[in-house]
């Protein structure tokens, strides 16, 4: 059974978002890391890149699969998790602790459209 944290918002493409002020922290969910298996590479955007809700911002690769990362929010990338460059497997250890990027939100309203924990947990069960 995959872990779902209550205080986060979720996209149906299996990314999570935590909002603090106008900064959104984005990662992939425990369900997603589990489905991918041993992660060997995370293709991250660069600081300063503009990301758009619903559009690709990178990719995660495991030995046998690769999956695009879809941004749940729009805005400017202000930080990326550089630890993942050398240790992408951190996501397998704890997908919620090991975020991928931080975005300065251009439209905070987008977050409201995302799933809450209960709705996302239900999605994973299906």
């Amino acid at each position, binding site marked *: 059974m995959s872990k779902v944290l209550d205080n986060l918002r979720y996209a149906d493409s299996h990314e999570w978002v935590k909002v603090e002020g106008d900064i959104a922290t984005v990662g992939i969910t425990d369900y997603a890391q589990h489905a991918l298996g*041993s992660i*060997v*590479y995370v293709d991250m955007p660069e600081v300063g890149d503009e990301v758009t809700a619903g559009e690709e911002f990178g990719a995660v*690769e*495991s*030995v046998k699969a690769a999956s695009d990362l879809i941004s749940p929010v729009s805005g400017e990338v202000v930080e990326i998790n550089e630890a993942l460059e050398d240790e*992408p*497997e951190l996501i397998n250890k704890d997908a919620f602790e090991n975020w991928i990027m931080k975005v300065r939100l251009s439209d905070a309203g987008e977050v409201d459209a995302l799933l809450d924990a209960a709705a996302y947990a239900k999605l994973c069960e299906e």
Partner: protein
Amino acid sequence: MKYYDKLIFELSRPGRKGYELPANAFGTDGAAEIPADLKRTEPLDLPEVSELDVVRHYTNLSNKNFGVDTGFYPLGSCTMKYNPKINEELSAMPEFAGVHPLQPAETAQGALELYYNLQHALSSLAGLEEFTLNPFAGAHGELTGLMVMRSYHESRGDHKRTKVIVPDSAHGTNPASAMVAGLEVVTVKSRPNGSVDVEDLKPLLDDTVAGIMMTNPNTLGMFETEIMEIAKLVHEAGGLLYYDGANFNPLLGKVRPGDMGFDIMHINLHKTFSTPHGGGGPGSGPVGVGKHLVQFLPNPRVRKGEDGKFFVDTDDRALGTISTFFGNFGVMMRAYAYILTLGKEGIRQVGPLATLNANYIKESLKDDYLLPIDGVCKHEFVFDGLKDKSTGVTTLNVAKRLLDYGFHAPTIYFPLLFHESMMIEPTETESKETLDEFIDVMHTVAREARETPDEVKNAPLTTLVRKLDETGAAKNPVLTYKALKKNAQ
């Protein structure tokens, strides 16, 4: 035997030589004419070894390989036939090996005639008007065929046809080829038996559809019985039908894709026409088309003049060019020899006997392995793992255990329609004795799965190397000797 694990670089000794070249008889010093800043300054770290070093090294490497000549390859969708030896010998003939691709046509008549004859033979076998032999591989043929499809619509001013329909059971190369050709992929659902769901197809067929890509028999080895209906629907909607020749073998000598309504197809010469797989290539992926599409085939084309002479032609209406020259000519020579050896009579037996072999294995093993789709298959079929799921032994475990018994593994985890897919294709060149041996071993593995499951899960146990650290390889890619040396320090 000792495990040989040296790299050619590790045999190197400064000053050792494996070659002899003539002395400079020209009295010129060309190198002096080249400015120093255009020359390489980095050291060149290549092996320095003797001829015998090279011969032993690569002979040792060959001993670490499994090939069709070593043993049976029940590899679904790959058609691993025996590769006749005479074909190898003929393809190396100096009369062809020395021909420059840009040599004047009158001095390359033999090569051009062979190319032309093979084009012609494939057209007859496939029921299509004309072939190009230029594509280098199956995937390259798909790309070329889809370019033909787009060129056809564009030539009619029909610019909105940008979608291609691909069954969800198709091999991943189909959608990838469509993407490269600039087409958008629309997925059509399959029925439980893997065939295209005609009801799901109908609403997809609008005036934005360029065509559909299909194999027949489909990925599960089942004949698409509604093919004529599908062809009619697609054509009525203004689309074209593309035939993925990966599964042509069971139809060879029995059914021609052109007669089923297909407009475009590629053939994998390295599957259906017995040219060797070469450890991954070179292959060859000729593309054939109906009469209405001939002008779009890529340049250069080989034609026969009224005087009986062969010549190289280009056509302004062609889709463009997709190869430097004429494709993998050496592979074509082998396929041509294969066709001539069987002749118009013998070739009729290819598909039927391949189908006989597949059905024989299927019927012999369905007591131990889960057959999700019962009924007559064609050249291949799919098991959904072992019947007894309680042992925890997976398809991967069975595949690896087969290696211990001297067989290659089947294609596994494809198609994606089942969790434990195991796709078996024996081809017509295997004898009943070989099939019986394989069937026995498959039964043995099923018994081991019940009795000593841990042993099966740890397989392979007897191969030269055992389970490999694939995660480590992907995480920190070490792709060269230099990187390997650096890591060791």
